[in-house]
């Protein structure tokens, strides 16, 4: 390609040279031709003019001779007249013809003028012709006064004038007058004209001062550039009376010299005219012609140049536009890709181009990089010399080389990986380096991710292997127990003690197996990304109360001290997924209980953290124990699925290894953080931080302002009293507190005596001196039952509930104190103003007895178990094998026939959700009110939500726990039967 282009340029150059040389040669030829033509025309013109001059001069000579002849005749005829008359006659003729003098000549060469004055003119050379040959003559002479004259003379009849005998007469003209007869107006007055003899001697010259010419042939020999041969030829011409034209240079001037015989004696008319004058007219034409030609050529040239220029401009604009388009496109392209393009000069490595995306990708301003490409070194991580000079030079022409580079963005610190490929190229005979930094960041990151994934997969696989190993052990353990004790049960069926013991162990093993399966399923659900949050308003006190209820028995079973602390005054109502929060906290506390030896201490703390937005609250939950702790190594993997620390202690503790992984995933799902701090044998602290939205303002405040104005609080921990006072500040309830039971009694009695009874009295259960029950009893004894008394406790009050109610305590509430809990607890007391002694449990128990359940269950075994279990509770049931049958049985039943429906979800013909919707949509009088509870192995929050969405009132997880059935049924049936 390059060779072709070079050849094209060469051919074009040669062609242009040939055209140029041809133009010059043609110009020279044309100029020479024109010059020659002009010269010929000019000389013709010169010959024509001076031919005319010569003829005029000849006529002038002939005229003079003619006049002399006529005057001679006159003198002959009038030889007898007086001299005065002759003189007068001659004077008249002189005046008329303009000659300068008239002469009478005698044969002795003397002469006289009409006035008798003698004169001496040298006529020697022509005297013979005049005197002997009787021929007319013309000769030059110098008068005695020095005046140069030309004399014309003819022989006449001898005569006498004033005594002077004459044989010839003559007239003379001054040479100045003679010159006038030779002058021509042509040639701008620059023409010289001489009359010379054939030897070159000058008779007269027309030019002012030209009399200094003595001999023109000698002058030409000395002054001109004519060579000897040419001069000899001229001399020959003159001797032979031949006309001729010659051209010569005299000094710096070129002359045309024309010589023509006058036709008398040896006289020659010599015309000397500057060449430039001779050809002036023609040169003018030539000049005009040449000027026109030059102008035409120039115009054509200018037009061609203009055309070429216009084309060049157009091409240039086009190229520029294309270049701009390309640059723009390249800039846009480069801005939309993460590759960086650089062009360097080969010699000095100056940057010719750098794509503008370098600023976006590496944080290097384009201009800075243009000024010095070395600025890239600041961003290089693994390559200290960004573009190594020596290595660049080692790249052969048209070759390339690449390096792997890693850069860090100057401003953001983002790391990027590039493959830097350097191409050594020749562009328009200029050697350049084209550098392409191909972005490999995604590839690198993908490789890293793949590596991590591979590592994770290996780890997970290993974990699963471990898990399967563990599960094999964990599942087999309860299963062995179930199978083993079932065998023993059959064997010892007649031994009541053995049966109860075996049954209890089988039940425990079953529960453990069930929890194991639940965790596995829960983890599987979370990992598959199908877990979502059920965000709703919930009460923090309620949440803590439920935790208390659930966890306190476990801790109590291990004689552990489990305490709940709330620091600060967090709002009671907030919005979040209570179920998942509960799950997180239960997991943490359960683990603490599990891995804390008997008698250990477990603290559950809630902190309110500063929040950036007022509509949100940030809470920190801390679960701290003094248990066995964990190794630092295990802490790194504690949140990984299927991870369990292997030790002699933990091996004895049942667990799936999924609890913490589930917890971590749930925290992540809720946008929180979790971390662990632990030391082996010293204990472990889990910390969870979560943010919750805050609901609108509570309605409780108005209620308090209407119902309660004064309250007495008694707790041996004054901080609790102050916390309660602070928490109740917005309710405007006047809080009085005391730190022991006696003071509480005293305060209550005093108030009563003043007729200003407290509206409610809140007593801590365990106080030094009088405990809460004893204090309540004494207060009742002093002031009666008019004032509601409540017990605040961190402990399970089920053991003291009967005694407490007997002592006059109206209600219990768990620590920590929450206004909402307090309000919900105390509100019923003010609605009927009676103190209820009926426990909840008893109410539920009574609900189960005699109730009729519609059980929809396709599995016969499960149906049988449920039937038996309901029977054990004093209830009965009717079975439907699918949803459609359940719908039919309900719609056909009499109102009040069924107290509740237990609906399996996954059933043939019609599932439980659809069946529920049809029941709710049926025209049965109890279609809207009949309690329906789902029974399903699907225990996730979504399952609960789906159940509720379909119209069910509750959810029971399989395998069915009768306690759960009892609790749910109790609440739903009581609710249904309330007016």
């Amino acid at each position, binding site marked *: 390609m390059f060779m072709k282009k070079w050849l094209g340029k060469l051919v074009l150059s040669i062609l242009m040279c040939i055209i140029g040389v041809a133009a010059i040669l043609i110009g020279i030829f044309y100029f020479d031709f024109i010059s020659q033509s002009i010269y010929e025309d000019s000389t013709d013109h010169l010959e024509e003019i001076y031919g005319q001059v010569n003829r005029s001069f000849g006529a002038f000579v002939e005229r003079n001779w003619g006049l002399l002849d006529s005057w001679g005749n006159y003198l002959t005829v009038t030889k007898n007249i007086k001299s005065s008359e002759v003189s007068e006659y001659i004077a008249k003729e002189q005046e008329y013809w303009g000659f300068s003098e008239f002469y009478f000549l005698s044969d002795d060469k003397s002469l006289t003028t009409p006035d008798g004055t003698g004169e001496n003119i040298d006529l020697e050379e022509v005297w013979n012709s005049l005197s002997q040959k009787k021929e007319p003559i013309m000769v030059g002479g110098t008068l005695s006064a020095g005046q140069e004259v030309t004399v014309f003379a003819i022989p006449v009849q001898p005569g006498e004038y004033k005594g002077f005998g004459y044989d010839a007469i003559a007239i003379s003209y001054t040479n100045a007058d003679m010159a006038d007869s030779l002058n021509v107006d042509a040639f701008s007055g620059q023409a010289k004209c001489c009359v010379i003899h054939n030897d070159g001697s000058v008779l007269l010259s027309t030019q002012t001062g*030209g*009399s200094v*010419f*003595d001999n023109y042939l000698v*002058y030409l020999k*000395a002054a001109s550039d004519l060579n000897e041969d040419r001069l000899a030829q001229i001399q020959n011409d003159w001797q032979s009376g031949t006309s001729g034209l010659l051209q010569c240079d005299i000094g710096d001037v070129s002359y045309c010299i024309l010589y023509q015989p006058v036709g008398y004696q040896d006289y020659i008319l010599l015309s000397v005219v500057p060449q430039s004058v001779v050809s002036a007219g023609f040169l003018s034409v030539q000049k005009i012609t040449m000027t026109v030609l030059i102008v035409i050529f120039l115009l054509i040239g200018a037009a061609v140049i203009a055309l070429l220029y216009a084309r060049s401009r157009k091409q240039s604009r086009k190229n520029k536009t294309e270049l701009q388009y390309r640059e723009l496109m390249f800039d846009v392209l480069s801005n939309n890709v993460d590759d960086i393009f650089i062009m360097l000069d080969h010699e000095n490595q100056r940057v010719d181009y750098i794509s503008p995306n370098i600023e976006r990708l590496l944080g290097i301003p384009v201009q800075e990089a243009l000024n010095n490409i070395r600025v890239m070194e600041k961003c290089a991580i693994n390559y200290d010399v960004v573009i190594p000079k020596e290595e660049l030079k080692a790249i052969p022409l048209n070759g390339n080389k690449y390096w792997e580079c890693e850069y860090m963005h100057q401003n953001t610190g983002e790391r990027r990986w590039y493959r830097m490929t350097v191409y050594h190229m020749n562009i328009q005979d200029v050697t350049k380096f084209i550098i392409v930094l191909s972005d490999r960041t995604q590839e690198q990151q993908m490789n890293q991710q793949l590596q991590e994934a591979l590592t994770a997969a290996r780890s997970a696989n290993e974990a699963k292997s471990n898990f399967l190993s563990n599960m094999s052990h964990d599942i087999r353990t309860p299963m062995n127990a179930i199978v083993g004790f079932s065998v023993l049960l059959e064997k010892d069926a007649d031994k009541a003690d053995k049966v109860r013991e075996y049954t209890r162990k089988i039940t425990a093993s079953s529960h453990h197996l069930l929890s194991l399966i639940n965790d596995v399923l829960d983890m599987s659900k979370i990992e598959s990304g199908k877990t979502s949050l059920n965000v709703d308003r919930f009460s923090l006190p309620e949440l803590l109360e439920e935790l208390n209820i659930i966890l306190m028995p476990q801790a109590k079973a291990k004689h552990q001290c489990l305490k709940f602390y709330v620091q600060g005054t967090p709002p009671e109502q907030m919005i979040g997924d209570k179920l998942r929060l509960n799950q997180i906290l239960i997991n943490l506390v359960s683990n603490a209980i599990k891995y804390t030896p008997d008698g250990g201490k477990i603290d559950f703390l809630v902190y309110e953290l500063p929040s950036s937005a007022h509509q949100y609250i940030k809470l920190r939950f801390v679960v701290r124990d003094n248990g066995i702790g964990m190794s630092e190594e295990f802490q790194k993997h504690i949140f990984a699925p299927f991870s369990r620390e292997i030790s002699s202690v933990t091996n004895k503790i049942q667990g799936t290894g999924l609890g913490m992984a589930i917890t971590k995933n749930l925290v992540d799902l809720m946008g929180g953080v979790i971390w662990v701090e632990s030391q082996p044998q010293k204990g472990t602290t889990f910390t969870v931080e979560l943010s919750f939205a805050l609901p609108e303002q509570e309605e409780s405040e108005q209620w308090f302002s209407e119902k309660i104005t004064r309250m007495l609080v008694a707790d041996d921990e004054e901080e609790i009293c102050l916390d309660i006072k602070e928490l109740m500040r917005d309710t405007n309830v006047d809080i009085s507190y005391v730190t022991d039971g006696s003071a509480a009694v005293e305060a209550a009695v005093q108030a009563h005596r003043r007729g200003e009874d407290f509206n409610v009295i809140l007593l801590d259960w365990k106080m030094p001196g009088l405990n809460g029950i004893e204090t309540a009893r004494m207060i009742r004894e002093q002031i009666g039952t008019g004032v509601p008394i409540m017990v605040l406790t961190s402990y399970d009050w089920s053991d003291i509930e009967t005694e407490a109610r007997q002592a006059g305590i109206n209600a219990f509430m768990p620590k920590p104190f929450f206004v909402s809990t307090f309000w919900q607890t105390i509100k019923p007391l003010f609605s009927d103003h009676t103190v209820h002694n009926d426990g909840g449990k008893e109410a539920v128990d009574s609900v189960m007895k005699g109730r009729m359940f519609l059980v929809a269950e396709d599995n016969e075994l499960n149906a049988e178990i449920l039937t038996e279990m309901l029977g054990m509770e004093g209830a009965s049931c009717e079975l439907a094998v699918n949803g459609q049958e359940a719908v039919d049985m309900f719609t056909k039943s009499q109102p009040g026939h069924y107290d509740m429906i237990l609906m399996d979800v996954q059933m043939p013909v019609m599932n439980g959700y659809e069946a529920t919707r049809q029941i709710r949509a049926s025209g049965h009088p109890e279609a809207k009110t009949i309690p329906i509870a789902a029974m399903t192995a699907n225990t996730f929050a979504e399952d609960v939500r789906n159940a509720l969405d379909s119209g069910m009132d509750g959810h029971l997880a399989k395998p069915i726990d009768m306690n759960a059935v009892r609790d749910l049924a109790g609440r739903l049936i009581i609710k249904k039967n309330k007016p």
Partner: protein
Amino acid sequence: MKKRYFSVLLTLAAAISITTCNGTSEMSDKTSLTIMGRKSDMQKSYMTSIFDQYQKSTGTMLDIIAIEDADFETEATEKFAHGDVPDVFMHFHNADLERFDVSDNFYYLNNESWVSDLTDRSRDYCLDSKGNLLGLPFWESSVSGCYYNKTLLNSLGLKPATTQAEFDFLCQALAEIGYTPICWPEDGCTWMFQLGLDPVFADDPSLLDKLNKNEITYSDIPEVTNMVKWIKNAADKGWFGSDYLKKDWSDISTDMGSGDAVMTFIWDTWFYTDFEQGNKYSVDDFALMPIFMNTVDGGTYEGGNLNMMMVNKNSDRLKTALEFLSFCATDKNYNIAFDGISTVNCFKGQTTNIQSQMVTDAGASIAENERASTAASRIIGYSADDVAAAFGSMFNKDTDVSGCVKLMDDYRIKKAKTQGADGF
């Protein structure tokens, strides 16, 4: 001045008894006439010869008062001022002569018998503005004119010029052939300018009179401007050669001898005193034609400055003094005195002096066109150096023609003021 200087060098010292002592004279008992003049002038051979002849012939002793040249004008003026006027006083007819109250002190010699023997040129030189003959010219002299290389000119087919037009034509023709038409070195040739001015003031003495009375200036005289224009034109056209500004007096001999230059404005005796022999051309190759400087069409020759002997008309020995002059003007006596002296004739009867062939050949032309040296000698305040300086400014393009004329006037007037001339 040059001319006189070189003439002096050729003069042999006279071995006569001349006493000189700062203007004091040693008078003898036989003294009957006192003659005062420059010391160098008094020592000329022809002067000592005539003095000697007179004393021997008449027995009348001469008291020669020879004053040192440098002090001559001052001392002589003082003597005249104190009435100490000699019987015979020798002085050139120039502007300085006016100091000596010519009309009051000197006798007009118009009617002396020897007047008819004077050549016209020498007679005219001695006339005052009113035509009175002031003295007897008795001096060696030469003819300044345009000396040309006739051999060379003839070989070029050219003739000498007879008019200004022919001279210009000739110059141009020579220049075109490649010769330097006129050898005119800018340095040391200050006399050349006066040659053109001579005919202006010689032909119209009234101009000289007005100029000397400061009634007119050069700029009022067209011929002066014409001369300056011509000189500038000649220089511009290369008629003086391409390097005339670098040349000096000594180059005249070289350029004329080699034939590089064809013509020069010089005097005939120069060929015998300064022209170096052995060159391509010798003195025989040269001829004389008039000087053409655009002030007179027929050209001009400058006759030499002549020392003239004037007679104290108030002297008691007036008669003896007139007899002395007659003795000097006798052909026998002056032919003895000028025997072998190269000079043009002052007397028509001079035969023993040596007159150059060039002058002889041009006799007719000289007779027609010769003027006495007028400009340099008669113009009050004239200085050849000043005039040359004015032209130098023009040659060096520092001024133009009118500027040059003005400079000539300025210098002249300044010098006249210095001299205390009347009217300035």
